[in-house]
């Protein structure tokens, strides 16, 4: 019915997700005066045209400051916010593709669906393909549910296990996987009886229990003490090995990204400014913004107290309502300021294209683009 083997799939065999020119714009309220005067509606351009591809079992990092649109990107992929424009192709398992088709979704060759086209009523089966773990484990778990109830809910919603015994068995197994042992003891605990690290383990268990292909992890360690961050990062690695999940890891900390990610995309005001292999990006950053982000990261070296940090960046992130023209970073860019004469025709005027400088290393900056 829906599979036409002859047609070529949009996604390569080892790809699970492809985002093309994704835009998420939130309209602002217009005052009645503005409406009467016929002023156009203004938008918060949270995500303003990004493209990337996820390979199977890859950890892809979105790095940027608050307000750069990294969380909105994650939410758009979860279909938690409306997608304004663009395509998000995702490969779904066959049985879920059938469910989606019944609910009126177009299935593209190779069991691929465009998330932007999935009707609202078909979002439920989609949750078995893409899951999310939130930043704050103190807020993301229902305080009135026990751990068992928290983990049982997705099983019931998705009809994964129909009998109680079966569900308890699955829950016990997943608790063992996330190392909350003995499971019988943790099942009857409430979130307030758990530490931050243990809560985040429950949050991961809840996401993984439906066996998703992709998990969006939105700053999963930034609310935790440094001493237990590594514990959660290690758990993520184990889950990847065991269940073959692909992660979209959202963080503001490049040092953390270096440990967990295969590729890093640096985001600024809704656009990617640089994408590369994680190590290469940190060892050889090209974009002035990436350089500033790297220079800002504190390290446990007592020599650092003896000198100022050399931050080649000015001011703070502007609002996503009034995005600067040209390169969105130019008002904060020290390189632009120093070479204003030479660059004044480019940076403040034209948006730089994302170009491939060396293999798989992309940067959007006029310093590197051929003019």
């Amino acid at each position, binding site marked *: 019915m829906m599979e036409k083997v002859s047609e070529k799939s949009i996604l390569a065999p080892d790809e699970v997700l492809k985002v093309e020119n994704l835009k998420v714009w939130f309209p602002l309220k217009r005052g009645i005066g503005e409406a009467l005067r016929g002023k156009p509606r203004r938008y918060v351009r949270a995500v303003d045209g990004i493209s990337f591809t996820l390979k199977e079992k890859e950890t892809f990092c979105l790095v940027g400051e608050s307000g750069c649109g990294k969380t909105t990107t994650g939410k758009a992929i979860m279909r938690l916010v409306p997608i304004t424009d663009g395509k998000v192709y995702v490969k779904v398992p066959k049985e879920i593709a059938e469910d989606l088709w019944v609910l009126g979704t177009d299935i593209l060759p190779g069991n691929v669906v465009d998330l932007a086209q999935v009707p609202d009523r078909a979002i439920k089966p989609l949750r078995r393909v893409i899951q999310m773990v939130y930043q704050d484990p103190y807020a993301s778990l229902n305080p009135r549910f026990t751990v068992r109830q928290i983990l049982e809910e997705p099983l019931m919603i998705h009809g994964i296990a129909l009998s109680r015994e079966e569900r308890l068995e699955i829950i016990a197994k997943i608790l063992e996987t996330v190392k909350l042992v003995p499971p019988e003891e943790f099942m009857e605990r409430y979130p307030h009886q758990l530490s931050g690290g243990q809560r985040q383990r429950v949050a991961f268990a809840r996401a993984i229990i439906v066996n998703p292909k992709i998990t969006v992890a939105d700053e999963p360690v930034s609310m935790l003490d*440094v001493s237990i961050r590594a*514990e959660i990062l*290690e758990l993520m690695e184990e889950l990847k090995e065991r269940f073959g999940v692909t992660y979209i890891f959202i963080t503001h*900390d490049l040092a953390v990204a*270096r440990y967990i990610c295969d590729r890093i995309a640096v985001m600024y005001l809704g656009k990617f400014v640089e994408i590369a292999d994680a190590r290469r990006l940190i060892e050889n950053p090209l974009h002035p913004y990436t350089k500033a*982000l790297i220079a800002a990261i*504190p390290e446990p070296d007592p020599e*650092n*107290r003896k000198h100022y940090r050399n*931050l080649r960046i000015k001011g703070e992130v502007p609002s996503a309502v009034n995005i600067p023209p040209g390169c969105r970073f130019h008002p904060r860019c020290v390189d632009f300021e120093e070479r204003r004469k030479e660059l004044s025709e480019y940076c403040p005027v034209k948006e730089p294209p994302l170009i491939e400088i060396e293999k798989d290393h992309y940067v959007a900056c006029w310093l590197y683009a051929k003019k």
Partner: protein
Amino acid sequence: MPLLEVRNLKTYYYTLSGVVKAVDGVSFTVERGETLGIAGESGSGKSTVAFSVMVMPPPPGRIVSGDIILDGENIVKMKESELRRKIRWKKISMVFQGAMNALNPVYTIGYQIAEPLILHGGYTKKEAEERVKELLEMVGLDPTIAKRYPHELSGGQKQRVVIAMALALEPPLVIADEPTTALDVVVQAQIMNLLKKLKWEKKISMIFISHDLAVIAEVADKIAVMYGGKIVEYGPADKVYTEPKHPYTRLLLKSIPRLRGPIEKLEYIPGVPPDLRNPPPGCRFHPRCPYRFDPCDKEEPPLIEVEKDHYVACWLYAKR
């Protein structure tokens, strides 16, 4: 004579479910112009130390015993009115955790900075206005911000305002309790640069509190590592970072993801911090310590000087 000497400070919280020994016998000194960094996980008692030094432990907390000697004067026994008149703002001020919420949303920035100047510093309104401008410039803000309200500022700007307030009366000692925790890395680095500038130009002494040893390394000359309401390691920054002695400090340092060098497997500290209503016997770290041996779960380790000015409370170093 050091600027601040804290001797055997004990601050307990008297809750309905028992007495929480949040700070249990902590001693340290801060010299003039020096910055002491206090590190520890959440629940280690580091914020309680900060509030105790201001002699305002949050209720139901009480300073049970100990001395806080500021400039040769013991302030623990001082009356509240005297503390307000002579000590707070003038001698010690504080930059609070989550400064974004420390500002009153219905007053302008200028009004809020001027308030301590008028109430505590005896400035007239005119003088205060001038001083506010100076202060805003000092922390790298445009003086016109004085007319704005907190909601009009970004997180980093609000943090700078709170720092300006803390410095308004030029106190010799400033306590900064996690001043950058809610901020982005770039803004955090900008604020740390500002704190360094103030430290060097104004010669202020600081107590800098954070859970992140990497941030503390930016300013601290001396480090105190707290665990379960006690200081487990205390010494000059150069020593503590390069030759950490206590197993807890070592693990804490190894758990920080690094930006450079080989990607080693990160360490973490299994288990949870102790319940301070009922702390474990002996060394409070022993249930999580990979090196524990015979005396650890029975007797509390003394604070031993392993080299000059470098102290550690661990049985591995105690001669018995």
